[in-house]
């Protein structure tokens, strides 16, 4: 009986397990392996073993790509800038999403469903098309730019161009990531028992204190899921800076994409990917550690 159950369990979970093994772990290993190789003469990878009859061709394993990464502060600077953009994007998303998620969670069911539909509706159209739509909106010739500059002109400020600027990148990043913050927050906030707020208020807490002592601490798990989802995605994003950013707005995602697609230096691209993954793991790990410490201190008064 128990044995049969186990077999069924393995059969059911075996397929997704195999899928993950093949298509997540294997590519990761390939990337790690790639980072220790020489780039090919015309892009891609150099051979592991020197082909017959050639003498001077680089082959075998090397730390050259890693040396290259640490030899120039440029790459670290791009990392730091990417981190800045990701942090700011995550913060803006959090600040914008929290009140909205709270509003949705506390609305009547009909209204709640309509609002949830509106939150996920952007997914119905293609990601790239939605970003290109911002190009049209932010274009210097667009109605929006025209009106904003008209007003700026009245107060005596010279015209502003929004497109291909850090501002446009941030706007696009926030726009793209909002649903990934709203949804986990909503899922958390919707589960809160409203009687807890009644109790807090009854015991003397104002609305603001009710939020600070009850709603906010109870929502921490939702907040951290939202932060993780948005932060990781924002740190690796390349499409938004590609389309909405100027030449100076290159982020780590663009750098990696360029290494594989334009420059075709695969080992260096692999090194950049590994560094990105390590950075993310480090930050998430530190975040989880401090969150746990904070919680422990809260509980032990």
């Amino acid at each position, binding site marked *: 009986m128990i044995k049969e159950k186990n077999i069924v369990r393995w059969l059911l979970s075996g397929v997704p397990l195999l899928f993950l093994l093949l298509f997540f772990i294997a590519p990761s290993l390939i990337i790690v392996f790639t980072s220790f190789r020489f780039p090919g003469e015309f892009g891609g990878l150099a051979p592991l073993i020197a082909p017959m009859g050639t003498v001077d061709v680089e082959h075998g394993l090397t730390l050259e790509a890693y040396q290259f990464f640490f030899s120039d502060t440029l790459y670290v600077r791009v990392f730091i800038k990417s981190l800045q953009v990701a942090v700011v994007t995550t913060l803006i998303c959090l600040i914008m999403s929290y009140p909205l998620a709270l509003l949705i969670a506390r609305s009547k069911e009909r209204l709640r469903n309509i609002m949830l539909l509106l939150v996920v509706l952007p997914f119905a159209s293609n990601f790239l098309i939605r970003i290109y739509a911002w190009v049209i909106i932010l274009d210097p010739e667009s109605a929006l730019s025209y009106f904003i500059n008209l007003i700026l002109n009245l107060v005596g400020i010279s015209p502003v161009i929004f497109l291909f600027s850090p501002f446009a990148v941030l706007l696009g990043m926030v726009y793209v990531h909002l649903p990934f913050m709203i949804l986990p927050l909503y899922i958390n906030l919707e589960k809160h028992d409203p009687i*807890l707020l*009644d109790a807090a208020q*009854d015991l*003397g*807490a104002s609305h603001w204190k009710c939020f600070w002592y009850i709603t906010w601490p109870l929502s921490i798990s939702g907040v951290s899921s939202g932060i993780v989802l948005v932060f990781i995605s924002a740190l690796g994003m390349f499409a938004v800076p590609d389309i909405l950013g100027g030449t100076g707005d290159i982020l780590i995602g663009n750098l990696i994409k360029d290494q594989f697609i334009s420059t075709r230096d695969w080992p260096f691209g692999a090194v950049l990917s590994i560094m990105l993954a390590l950075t993310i793991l480090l930050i998430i790990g530190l975040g989880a550690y401090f969150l746990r410490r904070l919680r422990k201190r809260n509980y032990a008064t």
Partner: protein
Amino acid sequence: MALLEIRGVTRCFGNFIAVNNISISIETGEFFTLLGPSGCGKTTLLRMIAGFDLPDSGQILLDGKDMVGMPSEKRPIHTVFQTYALFPHMTVSDNVAFPLKIAGEKLDEIRSRVIKTLDDVRLFNLGNRFPHELSGGQRQRVALARGLISRPRLLLLDEPLGALDLKLREEMQIELINLQKETGIAFVFVTHSQNEALTLSHRIVVMNQGGVEQIDTPSKIYNFPRNRFVADFLGKINIMDAQVLEIIPPYLRLIIPELGQVVIPNKEGVKIGDKGFMAIRPEQMRIMIYSEEVNSKNHFSGQIKSLLYAGDVTTYVVEFSNGTRVEILLPNSAPREIKRFEIGDLVVIVWESDVGLFLND
């Protein structure tokens, strides 16, 4: 001056009148119970006292001051909720400390008062536990401690024992009485359980369909219910149609249709010819064997139709000649004096003239 005075309070939800022109006053140090079937308006009234809801008309005064417009967090009134509403992310200590922390008390003061209050509700070493690590009775005590710690003028308890099993409920009843006595804080207790109301309260208000049926002490409510609803709601009672035949102070002579005449205690304001009901508790009647000689004025013959044995007592259902059924409760102790009866036995039901009640409606 009464501690809490409810003056002509009415609350409607659409066409439904939840609370209909209710006036009650509650004194300092009183254990006051709102008793009634579900939907009688007792919870709505409680919510208005707490400040979660506002009356459509009427006033609620605390120490003579109108509380309309005073939000719930400003009222010196705390509530113990039916589901306890403990904060799941806080320890027992933090839960209990909450009202003091909100009020901005000093940390040392909070700490010593939390320890004292946890002692009062017998939760000595559980301060560091989380609510989900506690039993139902312990959670109940945390909720009580949290409600009492800042010494409110009034503690509202919304069916707080409803979720506990019978044995625990009886234990908590005793603790509630003690806690109320020790703190001297007025308790307003909401329940639909007549047993709980009778055991705990100094005074009870019996509510029905948004209105007040009777406000009195437990023994007055039980022994002298004002009308048929109160008589029926509190404990078991036998009710028969009756009409006043004669007033012979201190007695009343009634006629019960198709059965005969009975003599019961007089009641103020009753006139000859009044139609109403004769009510008598199951434990106020006796059963005698048919052939025995009967001295009592009130006696009717009947037949035992069924019996319910409950350990300490047995309830007999007896049918009179006119088809009326009554319940009679006999204790099972004192075995020599009390005879046991079987289904089908022909018996005489007897009661003295100093028991029984005439109800006008």
